[in-house]
């Protein structure tokens, strides 16, 4: 049985449907991210889990027990806020002890637990500091300690890294990953930063306008996006419109708009209709400029622009009425393409993914 389960969760604010019929189950110890552009309903979703909102429809279950209408203080679900929401009138010790005191835990136990938790986030000795005496990163760790000390069944994190500067963010991200893995914490993490979601999550829920677009591991989302929105939101992408012409010998035959033919060997059953145009995803790094045993030639393209970014070179290409982006690793042996040059572009059939 999964630890957290959302069933047909729906939240409307007047005419706006912030979360639309969301279903999700999270296993114990799993780290799940809610990813999406701003306004996609990810924050609303964790506020529903935390109990700050009562859903318009649907249920929230923890270990099979319904908690949909339970007030937040009786859910045993911890939340780390985007603004940290540290109590400015209390010091570090009092902030961390707040939840234990509210639950009327014995005093000597409180002291022990707070001490342990502060050590866990490397803040031993900070007990009597006020919030204004802490750096952004320290404030963030107090916020995490304050939540962890109450031993919540589920930890909710609302963009906890977005207020940190770039270098600190990466470092904190690693610490957060270590901490949650080491303690076996079940976490639901909200972010609009896909790199963050990829680095931390076991699974990602991609939301757009309140509707769940895909649930899957980071690799699934990147390589097998469920639809065009996912393909374009995650990473950089090229979309190829291909017309299905018919079946060849152990391959499928497609054509570009201009009539150039493409034969693809595809495993699995595809239900395609002759004459229909389908859109396919081709990631920029999957474009190759040389014929290899396992790739197929697509078409000729002209180099419109090139950009050297260190490890990679980025090319803007044009051919068959399409604009493509290509990403080549800069190995010492590879030759840089020049603007204006014409090249043949190739790709492995496995790298060409059908978008439904």
């Amino acid at each position, binding site marked *: 049985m999964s630890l957290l389960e959302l069933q047909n969760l729906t939240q409307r604010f007047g005419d706006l449907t912030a979360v639309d019929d969301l279903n999700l189950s999270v296993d114990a110890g799993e780290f799940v991210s809610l990813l999406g552009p701003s306004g996609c309903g990810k924050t609303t979703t964790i506020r529903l889990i935390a109990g700050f909102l009562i859903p318009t429809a649907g249920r929230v279950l923890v270990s099979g027990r319904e908690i949909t209408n339970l*007030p937040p*203080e009786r859910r045993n679900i*911890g939340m780390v*806020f985007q603004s940290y*929401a540290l109590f400015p009138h209390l010091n570090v010790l009092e902030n961390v002890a*707040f939840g234990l005191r509210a639950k009327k835990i014995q005093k000597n136990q409180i002291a022990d637990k707070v001490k342990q938790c502060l050590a866990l986030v490397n803040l031993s000795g900070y007990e009597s500091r006020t919030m204004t005496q802490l750096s952004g990163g320290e404030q963030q760790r107090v916020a995490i300690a304050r939540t962890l000390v109450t031993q919540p069944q589920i930890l909710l994190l609302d963009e906890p890294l977005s207020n940190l500067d770039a270098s600190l963010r990466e470092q904190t991200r690693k610490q957060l990953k270590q901490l949650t893995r080491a303690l076996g914490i079940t976490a639901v993490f909200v972010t609009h930063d896909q790199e963050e979601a990829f680095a931390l999550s076991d699974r990602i829920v991609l939301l757009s306008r309140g509707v769940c677009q895909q649930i899957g591991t980071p690799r699934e989302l990147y390589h097998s996006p469920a639809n065009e929105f996912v393909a374009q939101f995650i990473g950089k992408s090229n979309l190829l419109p291909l017309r299905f012409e018919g079946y060849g010998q152990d391959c499928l035959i497609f054509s570009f708009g201009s009539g150039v033919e493409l034969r693809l060997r595809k495993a699995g059953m595809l239900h395609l209709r002759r004459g229909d145009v389908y859109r396919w995803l081709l990631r920029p790094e999957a474009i190759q400029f040389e014929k290899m045993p396992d790739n197929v030639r697509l078409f000729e393209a002209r180099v419109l622009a090139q950009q050297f970014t260190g490890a990679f070179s980025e090319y803007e290409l044009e051919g068959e009425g399409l604009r493509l982006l290509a990403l080549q690793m800069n190995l010492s042996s590879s030759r840089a393409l020049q603007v204006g040059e014409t090249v043949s572009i190739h790709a492995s059939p496995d790298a060409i993914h059908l978008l439904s």
Partner: protein
Amino acid sequence: MKPHRQNVQWSLLILYLSVLGLLLWLVLYPNLYIFVQSLKREGGFTFLNYQEFFLNPSQIEALSNSVLISLGSVFLSASIGVPLAFAFNLYDFPGRRILAALASLPVLLPPLVGVVSFLFLYGESGILSRGLQYGLGLKDPPVALRGVWAILFVHAYTMYVYFYLFVSAGLRRFDFSLVEASRSLGASRVRTFFLVTLRLLTPAMTGASLLTFMTSMASFSAPYIFGGGVRVLALQIYNSKLNGDLEMALVETVILTATSIFFLILLRRYEGTERYRSVSKGTQRPPELVQGRFLRMGLGVVGVLAVLFLLLPHFTLILVSFSRDGTWTTEILPPAYTIENYRRLFSSTQFLDPILNSLEMAALATAGNLLFALLAGYLIVRKRVRGRLLLGMLILLPWALPGTVLGLSLATTFDRYDPLQGRLLLVGTYWILPLAYFIRNIPVVVRAVQASFEQFDPALEEAARSLGATWLYSFRRVVFPMIVPGVISGSLLAFVAALGEFVTSIVIYTIHNRPISIEILAQLRQFNFGSAAAYGVLLVMLIAAVFVLSEKYSSDGAQLGLS
């Protein structure tokens, strides 16, 4: 289905209805009632009262005097307050910090006390007038504060502070990169000043103009004591009521209210705050040291003189408070001094009673304000209930109503027991004054509490709840400690305002329950200048203490609001 939600809804509804009901009953109803009454004569509805008002040249004169004096006060106050704000915030010279702080001193004088100390200074037998007369060997005092100019003088002295404080605050938040952008785009210093700097300070300027205009329209003490026959509406109301012409008093009240609200709406429309907020975060500019030693010294000297002038009324009040009652007649300075005035203030029941009365009534009214403001602020900010706009307008209304208007409307509405009409018999009882103070201070306290709630990050309450705290625990340990600074400073302001209240009190006080301000007036009438001044000093000291306290709390509050 959803138990805890429905409970919340019910108690919220009851709370909402009681707040709205109280506002409708105490704020809106008395004003509607006097409006309806002003249309009545001998039982029938008629416009005769209004016809009489507009056909009477002296009434028209009062109306135009009120408006003209108010406009003049705005102009004079702005021409003192705005340059001072610029000088003290943008330029550095010797003594700048002290002068900048002292420049807001006139706020320490409650309306009546300020006017009284001006009387001691510039009145016909005031220190300055007599000093000049004897110094120059003249038969009569060469200057005597009297008439329209006297009123304008007092207004400018007390109300330039609004411009000074508003524009200073505006300059402190000002984005000086905008000035630099304008200059680098080729605009001259002067052009930049008028097209950028001044334009961006529009919210501060309109805010201060509004406050000055409304305060001048409502001003009672200055025309009452210095007017010398100048007719203004606020005074006409009092006189008409005194003469028993209640119908005319009602018409005057309605017209004064309508005029005030008309200008309030006019200025508010002009303001349109949003357009003036800079999109960038803003770069601050430290005060620039004035170049040239002599210019710097010169500015310092001018500053010291200006502050001396500002402090004169305070010094005068203190000096006169030590004078023996009845000894000061035609001398420049009071001839005999004593501490008897102060001793008597606290030893003789006759003198102590007004103080105790005022303290008690102010405490009662403020306690009411506090409770009401907590509920209303919670509803408006945290619960974002429907009809917030209506609530907000009703809450602000007492602020737009001149004190005499409030007094008269309460005196008219609560003069008999008729619960079906929402009327109680309060006139002539103890309760009418505390009620008036309560209504008058609703805007101040609600706005302070509202601001505290707005500063307060709702995530803090949610954090407390998700850490396992019940609603009550989180209110006690998180919400309350966070809003308490704003609540205290708002309540303290209301308390001192009630303590020194004069304009409403003079319309409805009862002889057995006299507040301090009425006692000051009574002492003045008996030429007991020393006693009157001693009461004044006591009030000023209480107000000063409150300002220091609320300053302390509000800076604590700013620290708390950091997250």
